Structures are given as C-alpha cells and as structure tokens.
C-alpha cells in the first residue's frame, strides 16, 4: 500500500526528518489559507498515487495569491495519469542549493534491504543512475546484523562528500531506515532531499509504500487501505479479497493465479481486448466466484467472459457452482468460456455445462481463447 505524500511527510516529521511547512487543501479556499500562513512563494503538489507526477504537471509553483488561485483551481479539477486530483499539498518553497536522492527498498534478488543515495536527486534520477553511475552509491543491509550509522557514513564517503554533509545526511538515512523498519516499507524514498543555502537538509518529496502482507502487525497508525482505491471496481475487488485491475477492453477475465491471468491477457490481447485482470488467489469458494462474476459484470458492454482456473489448492468444482448460480440468477446471455483443469475437473466441467458454459478441455489457454474468439470474434 502506497501512502499519499502528505501522509508520508507527517510520518517523516514525527520521526525527526526535516520537512517543509505545509498544509493539505481540498478546495482553492483552503489552499489560499495555508499559503497565507506559510507565505509566498509556495509549491502546489497534486496528491495522486502515481509516479512521474512532476513531469505530468502535478507539481507547480505559485508566486502570488492570484497565481495560486488559478493553479489550485485547475489542479483540483484535473486528472493526473487517469486519477482525479482530490487534494493538493501546499508547501513552503525552500531555497535550493543542491538536490540529493535517498531511497531504501527491498532488493528482491539478494533478499536484503538496500539503501541508495545520489548526489544528483530530482526527476531525472534514473537517467543519472544509467549515465553517471559514479554519482550513485548503494549498500545492502544484512537483516540479521541490522543497520548502524557507520554504514551510512561509509556509503556517503563513496560519493566524496564533505564531513558536515555526511553527518547530517547519515542522520536522515538512520531515521528513514527506522521508518522503513517500523512501517515494513517496500519503498521509502526522499527525492529530492534538498540542501538549503545554510547547509541544512529538507525532505521535499516523500514516498512510503508499506508491505500489504504486514499491515496487520504494524503498530503505528496507518490510513485505511480500501478507502484510498480510487477506482470503484478495484476497490470492490479488494473488498471481496481478489486482485482486480480495470482495463479498457470488453472480454471479462477470471483466473486463478497471477501468472495464468497475465498469460491469458497476453493471449486475449492478440485479437481482442481484455476488460479486466482478475486473480482469485488460493481461496476459491462458490461464494467468491459468484462475487467475481458480479464484479466483472459491473463493466457495461462486456462481449464475453473467460474463466481460466486450475484445481491445485483451489476447489474448482465449488467455484463452478458459484459461476453457474450467477448465470442462472442474472440470466447471463453473453458467451462464457471456461478452462478448468486439475483436481475434480470432470465434476467441474459438468457443473459448467449445466449452465451453458463452453468448456474447453485442452490444456493450452490459446485453444480456449480460439473458442472464445470464434464465439464473439466477428460479433
């Protein structure tokens, strides 16, 4: 779960990382009030959970009250990367001597947390990493050894910095590492970490993504995770416990397993367009698949439904009962193709067929999608 920037800045502040004076505004009027307290110029930052926000116009400066009114008005009625801007962060525009980068993430390959620093922070940090690797340094932390300040100091020494900056920056690394540990962060990032003309540091932007699997044991207050999903269908998916991603096609998809779901999308995509990605995980019941049918049918103008499930950990015959109940109750008329293999497959096929579902018994998903295309292709 990714936190909003304004939520993350609050957490940073509680953990003694220097952050700008700021306020969160839902209306232009509120934005004006906050700017009045902070003093101009101010930054306005759209609070949407999308990367590359800066390049998409989500970060703007307002030098005067008039300018702020225009910018806030415009921002609060815009979309950034498809997400409506509901809140704007209004914050102090600090004088900048230099922009640094600091990020802590999990390195999946080595299975260790990694701290990444660069003397060239800002929006083009990834290019810097590619083109000037000497300006970037990183260190892996042994999870059983833990983090110690000297590790940060020796990391920063590799960038050839002055001792004063090493001292203040390594303090912030320690605080960010502590936040990452307490909040079980997959990513904790400050970009840019600004050096002010007086030498002080300021975390001007803040990213915190928390491990969903650890949410129940984090002992610190966190925002509600379902409320923050903008898309109502994706929110509904989270509510019933499946992964749903809204797409712009017209073939509904239910799959068990993310890999199988992705492969199904890839194959559908060759000649048609998927309306969604839906992955059930290992908890299939009749009730769950009934709700999955309900969910994918919330999209208007669906032309067909493809169900692709395996009976390994999942009781697919139970799942089939839920699908069939939905088809009967709601009188579904668009074609439904199902591929269902594994434990109790014959039983499953019979249940599907009882509701007119086209069952494909071959293994290859391509064959099932050929069938689907045959049924709707020229429709």
């Amino acid at each position, binding site marked *: 779960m*990714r936190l909003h920037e304004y939520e993350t800045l609050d957490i940073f502040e509680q953990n003694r990382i220097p952050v700008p004076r700021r306020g969160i505004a839902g209306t232009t009027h509120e934005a004006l009030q906050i700017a009045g307290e902070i003093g101009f110029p101010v930054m306005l930052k759209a609070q949407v*959970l*999308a*990367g*590359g926000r800066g390049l998409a116009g989500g970060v703007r400066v307002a030098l005067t009250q008039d300018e702020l009114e225009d910018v806030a008005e415009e921002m609060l009625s815009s979309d950034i990367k498809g997400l409506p801007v509901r809140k704007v962060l209004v914050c102090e525009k600090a004088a900048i001597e230099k922009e640094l980068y600091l*990020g*802590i*993430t*999990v390195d*999946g*390959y080595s*299975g*260790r*947390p*990694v701290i*990444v620093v660069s003397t060239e922070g800002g929006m083009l940090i*990834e290019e810097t*990493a*590619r083109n000037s690797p000497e300006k*970037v340094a990183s260190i892996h932390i042994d*999870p*059983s050894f833990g983090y110690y300040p000297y590790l940060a100091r020796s990391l920063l020494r590799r960038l050839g910095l002055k001792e004063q900056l090493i001292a203040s920056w390594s303090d912030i690394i320690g605080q960010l590492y502590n936040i990452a540990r307490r909040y*079980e962060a*997959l*990513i904790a*990032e400050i*970009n840019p970490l600004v050096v002010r003309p007086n030498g002080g540091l300021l975390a001007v932007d803040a*990213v915190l*993504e928390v*491990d*969903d*699997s*650890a949410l129940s*044991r984090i002992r610190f207050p966190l925002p509600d995770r379902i409320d923050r999903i903008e898309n109502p269908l994706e929110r509904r998916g989270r509510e019933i416990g499946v992964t749903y*991603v809204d*797409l712009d096609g017209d073939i509904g998809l239910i799959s068990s*397993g*993310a*890999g*199988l779901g*992705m*492969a199904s*999308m*890839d*194959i*559908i*995509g060759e000649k048609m367009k998927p309306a969604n*990605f839906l992955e059930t995980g*290992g908890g299939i019941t009749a009730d769950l698949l009934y709700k999955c049918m309900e969910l994918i049918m919330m999209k208007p103008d669906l032309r067909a439904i493809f169900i692709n*499930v*395996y009976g*390994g*950990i999942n009781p697919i015959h139970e799942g089939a009962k839920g699908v069939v109940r939905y088809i009967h109750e709601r009188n579904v008329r668009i074609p439904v193709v199902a591929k269902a*293999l594994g*434990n109790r497959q014959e039983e499953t096929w019979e249940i599907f067929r009882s509701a007119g579902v086209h069952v494909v018994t*071959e*293994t*290859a*998903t391509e*064959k099932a999608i050929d069938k689907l295309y045959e049924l709707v292709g020229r429709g």
Partner: protein
Amino acid sequence: MSILIDDSTRVIVQGITGRIGSVQTHWMLEYGTRVVGGVTPGKGGTTVEGVPVFDSVLEAVKETGANASVFFVPAAFVLDAFLETIDAGIKLIVVVPEHIPVRDVMKMRSYAVEKGVFALGPTTPGILSPGKGKMGIMPASLFAPGRVGIISRSGTLSYEFAGILSEVNVGQSTVVGMGADPVVLRNLADILELFERDTDTDAVIIVGEVGGEQEEKAAGFISRRMTKPVAAYIAGRQSPQGKRMGHAGAIVRGAAGTVDGKQKELRAAGVEILESPIHVADWARKNNLR
C-alpha cells in the same frame, strides 16, 4: 533421478490438521509421496489420512526420519515454524502459503542459506517429480514422467506448461515452483543448476513473468554454465505498467523487469523465447524431447 524429490525423500506436512493441509496430504499420498508425518502444535497423537501428527518438528523428525517438509501454516506463523524446522535438521522446505511479510521472508532466506537448507516459496505450488512424488498443491493429472525440467514463478502457469507437454507426450523430470513473491527463498539460477547437473533432465523450461530480475540474473548463469537447451516464456506483456512507486528499485535494477528486457537477455544467453505457452509443444518436438 530427478531433482529435489526422489526415493529417499520422507516428507512431513506442517499445518497438516488445517483444512488445506489435510486435503493436500490426501492428494500427496495418492500421488505416491512418502508423507511420513505431520506437525500441528497441540494436535500430537492424532492422525490425518493415516499419517501420525506430532506437536513439534523435532519430535516428528525423531520419530519418522523425515528429511523434507511442506508448509500449510498460516502466514503469521510461517517464520517461526520455518526456523524451528531448520533447527530440527530438515534440509528441504516448501513454503506454500501466500501473504507472508517480506521482512519475514528475508529472515527465513538468510537463515536457510546460513544452514545449508534448500527452501522454495513462499506462494509456491511446490515441487512435483512425476511418478515419484510431490510436495505441494500441483494437480497430478496434468503431469507425466519424462525428461524435461520446468521452473515457474507462477503456480498455475507451471500446470499449464506441464499439461501442454503431457498432451503431446513429452514428460517432465521435475516441475519446480519458485514462488511468486518479491523475495523468494531460492533464486532461479540455483534451480537451473540442479537441472543442469541432473542426469535425467535433457532440457529446461523457464516460465517467468514481468517484474523483478530473476530471469536477467539467470541469463548470466545460463551463458556461463548451462549446456542443456533452455526455453523461456515471460508472461505479462499486456499487463498495465505497475503503478510506479519510487526510483530506488529502478536504480538498483537498471532497465531490468520488463518483458522485452528479460527476453533480450535470455535470448542473448542462447535461450529460445516462447512468445505464447502453446509454442512449447513445437519447441519440444524440434528438440526431440520426450
């Protein structure tokens, strides 16, 4: 032969008395796996599917001579049970459950490496050696004995590939689910190495997916050390770019993680890229596999 599971494998099932644990024990036994015991603290002395249940792993190992364990333990208890299992001397562990916190997985992995334990998962369907046995949840009907190894990041896609091959009478030596989490207990290259050394495996299929850098790192291993033919499918070309959450990962990994990037590096290592799963049948025919 085969990798990981053979005639000497004596399996215990942790969380055997749970709903999934007991059902899967049934299927594992039915497939001929030597399930010698189960563990659920507080349920010692009972039996599940005729298999004796113990309160602790140590007791189970002492009483049954078990040397491998498959986990159906609730996510919150997996870390503790995993460490207990290693301390009891088990050398092969399959962690089926999903939703285990990444911090726990990192700790598990570092302890397994330290103690020389081979562990797979989390979020893995397990391991299956056709005709020999299975540890995990793979549905037996899709697999057939033969000489092709499969390593998959996705559970259900491993069934798909095995099923397609079985339909054209190409059997498998062993099918291994690596696990689908951001951090897994063993990396792809380690498993490739087992297949390279296995005299009963003639070729290997990698079933990968978008994200991470397992396939890229494996490409390095393949070009340096693999002599057997390798094919790879990478799922996720049509998947919307995951919402980008920060730069640190991208900086660490560079350009890695995309379908194109993975295909490019694997191809450069001599791997045949399968654009769609069904192409695996042609590849097998072309390479005279069976």
